[in-house]
């Protein structure tokens, strides 16, 4: 059996996919109704501009050039790391993101910590007493958990915990101290999904002869759970965890804007409301790159850890 490696073809395919994504994302600007130059000015707070302002904006947006040229120049800039400037602030989109990346990173890490801290014990308990009441409670819980839209959870937390009980603050400052609120709102749905899937994965491993072998060696149920079932289920689960990253970048945008978390997600919603197209484009593009890289990385990692996965497919 040969160790599976990410081949050149995979990398080429990845680049082609990302290029395709860049075409799709850039083309969104063409879908936007109305004159982009006017939209730029509206985004800058000039709703009723003079003709000369509009003309200047048209030049700024290179609207006088053919579509293909505009795309190619945009792509050229992007490849060099220049995502353009926000229509509202005229600042480089990357530096706008830079200001907010910290808060989003804190939220992302906290959410993952919450999810793992919740998921792993719950899954162990559910799989240990499968088909018994802890498992059933967990299944009902995860059904409900996946049905709670995160904006609702954050709304309820904000009102009950912050306002009624006086814990924490309404205006988050993006620090670790106030991250619990958006992180819990974001993690409930993810944790519910993960618990369900990971439980399925663990049960799957427990039903294999590997688990029987371990039992026959005299290992106790917890040892099998923690040393065999969980690690193996986690490896198979890695690609799915990466898919969660994709779901999180969307979910974070909603939650961040509900609880006023000063991160990139709230900034995106803000940009959407102001139709700040360069920001929207850059955000979606960067999120796509992050997502694709994470997903492929997780896939590669999982196959490295358990080469059988590559063969089964």
């Amino acid at each position, binding site marked *: 059996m040969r160790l599976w490696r990410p081949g050149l073809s995979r990398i080429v395919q990845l680049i082609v996919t990302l290029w395709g994504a860049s075409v799709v994302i850039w083309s969104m600007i063409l879908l*936007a*109704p*109305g*004159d982009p130059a*006017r*939209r730029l*000015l*509206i985004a*800058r*707070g*000039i*709703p*009723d*501009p*003079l003709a*000369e*302002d509009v003309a200047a904006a048209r030049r700024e947006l290179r609207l006088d050039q053919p579509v293909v040229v505009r795309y190619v120049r945009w792509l050229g800039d992007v490849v060099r790391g220049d995502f353009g400037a926000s229509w*509202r*602030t*005229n*600042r480089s989109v990357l530096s*706008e993101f830079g*200001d907010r990346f910290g808060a989003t990173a804190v939220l992302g890490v906290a959410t993952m910590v919450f999810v793992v801290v919740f998921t792993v014990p719950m899954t162990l308990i559910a799989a240990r007493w499968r088909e018994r009441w802890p498992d059933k409670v967990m299944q009902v819980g995860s059904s409900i958990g996946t049905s709670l839209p995160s904006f609702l959870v954050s709304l309820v937390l*904000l009102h009950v915990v*912050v*306002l009624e009980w*006086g814990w924490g*603050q*309404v*205006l988050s*400052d*993006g*620090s670790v*101290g106030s991250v619990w609120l958006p992180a819990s709102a974001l993690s409930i749905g993810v944790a519910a999904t993960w618990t369900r899937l990971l439980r399925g994965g663990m049960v799957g491993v427990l039903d294999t002869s590997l688990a029987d072998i371990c039992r026959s060696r005299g290992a106790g149920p917890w040892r099998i759970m923690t040393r065999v079932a969980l690690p193996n289920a986690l490896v198979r689960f890695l690609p799915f965890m990466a898919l969660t990253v994709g779901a999180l970048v969307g979910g974070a945008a909603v939650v961040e*804007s*509900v*609880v*006023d978390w*000063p991160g990139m997600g*709230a*900034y995106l*919603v*803000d940009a959407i*409301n*102001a*139709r700040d197209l360069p920001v929207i484009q850059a955000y979606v593009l960067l999120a796509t790159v992050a997502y694709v890289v994470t997903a492929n990385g997780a896939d590669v990692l999982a196959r490295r850890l358990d080469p059988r996965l590559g063969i089964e497919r």
Partner: protein
Amino acid sequence: MTQRSNLAFTQSRLRWRTTLAVIALAGVVGAACSSDDSSSTVADSATTVADTTAETVAETVAETVAEAAATTVDSADNTTPVSDPSSTDPGSAEVADDPLIVLNSYEIAFIDPVASGGFWLYDFGGQENLLERKDDGKLHPWIAESVERVDPLTWTITVRDGITYGNGGEVDAEGVAASINRQIAERSGSRNLIPGGVATVSGPLEVMLTTPEPNAGVADALAERGAFPVYDVDAVVAADGVDEDTFADNDLLIGTGFLTGPYQPVEFSADEMTLGAYADYWQGTPPLPGVVVRRVIDEQARMLAVQNGEADLNLYPPVEAARLLTNADGPQFKASTIALQGVTMDLNLQSAPFDDVKVRQALALALDYDMLANDVLDGVFGVATGLYPEPVVPGIVERSTTDPERASALLDEAGWVQDGDGVRTRGGEKLSFTILRAAQDPETNSLAIAIQELVKPFGFEVELLTSEDFFTVLEDPEAWDATIFLTGLMSSSGAPYGPFFNKLTTEGPNNNGKFSDPELDALYLDLLASETDDERLEILDRTSEIVVTEQAYLIITTFKRYVVVVSPEYSDYVVSNFRRHVTFDTAPAA
């Protein structure tokens, strides 16, 4: 202010502490001063990072500004900083412990006064104009000691002596003239108010402003928010570098002390701007250590934050807040005394049904203005009376009236027949129209929903449109029938000139209904040439009569007040009629 909010402030301060240090350093080094001074500024800041008590932070805001300013002036201009402000009013004796925390819904994108949207510092005590319109509705001297019209084309501005920019530089005639000329040259909004205006220095503290045509609006223009602030043009241009076409980046302007106001920007990020007190401010020591303007988009979050003691002022709350804030010990809902801005419904004269004056008049008469202001908008807004609110144009006659019978009669006359209480028809065509809303504004949304329901009994069928690209839709005469948005006939500083031209003249860029009325065009020229208040009153009254009653070109649905929710600490806060949310006088309740 509660403990929590101190903490919040401290934390957010900490985040930007490093930025501040870097900016201070850059400013100082950039000005090529002695390296000793610069390192001490940074060291001070660094000490504060470790020390996180609210008091220390608050003090440091003031210190840093003063220090940075002092250093910059020292090095760049080689003059001594003004240590003894020449103020007639010593200001508040006590300095409050905590900065004022203001929650704003808009993004403060730019601070260079020529940039679009670069007017925000006017609202928060940063920018000052030559003249100010106080809450009595009248113009008063501000940076100018006086502004006089010496002949129809010439104005003399006398600058108050002893005023300094935040960087210590003195405000003189040269600086004022440079400010005016840069604004006219590079900002279209300013240029439209004083087209062709040229400012020249005629004495150490005297500036002469000439216009090619008679312009009665010059004094008002000089008081206009964001139009003609006085600032250190050299500092801005130096920060801007070489590119003349654009404006200076915020990062480069922070800490340059280019403004004259009591609170000057020391930190800036897209979501938060910190203004530090300018210790050498000309009217005295500012009563607050600083002002933090934080952008919180969500209107409920702004409400809750003040309720939770995390902020002091919530700007742009929804009118419903008046009903919600009933606890006398909690946050208070405050409104300005004058309802200045009009929420206007423009009618499209280019297509049916509003090409018919009778239908326009009927619609205007069908609306119950009292109900719109008092029931729909909870009495927070003022009842519409005509084009101009009475307090700003004293003596103007009330023109908006409600007369359901006359409205129905007019529609009958116009040939629109109502069967029972259904939609009126004429020749098989329904009497229906669309109302186009700007998506952003909650009040216009409420009004549109209410109007839709209120005119139903008269046989109007209304469809609400929300358009993405509002102004592009407006240009297409077939795409809309009526539109509602916040754009009164008064500028935000209470002057009628600009809005008159924009909305009521044939050439006006915001004449969305595209009416062309020779009498209105003539009245505009009369207004510009007018010299006395009585003359002006007569012109504006006649205008209101034409626009509201005789032709019903547009409908003022309500007058909007500025409303603010204040924390208990600021229970005696007075809401400005002219958008000056933070002034030298703003301080916690005694």
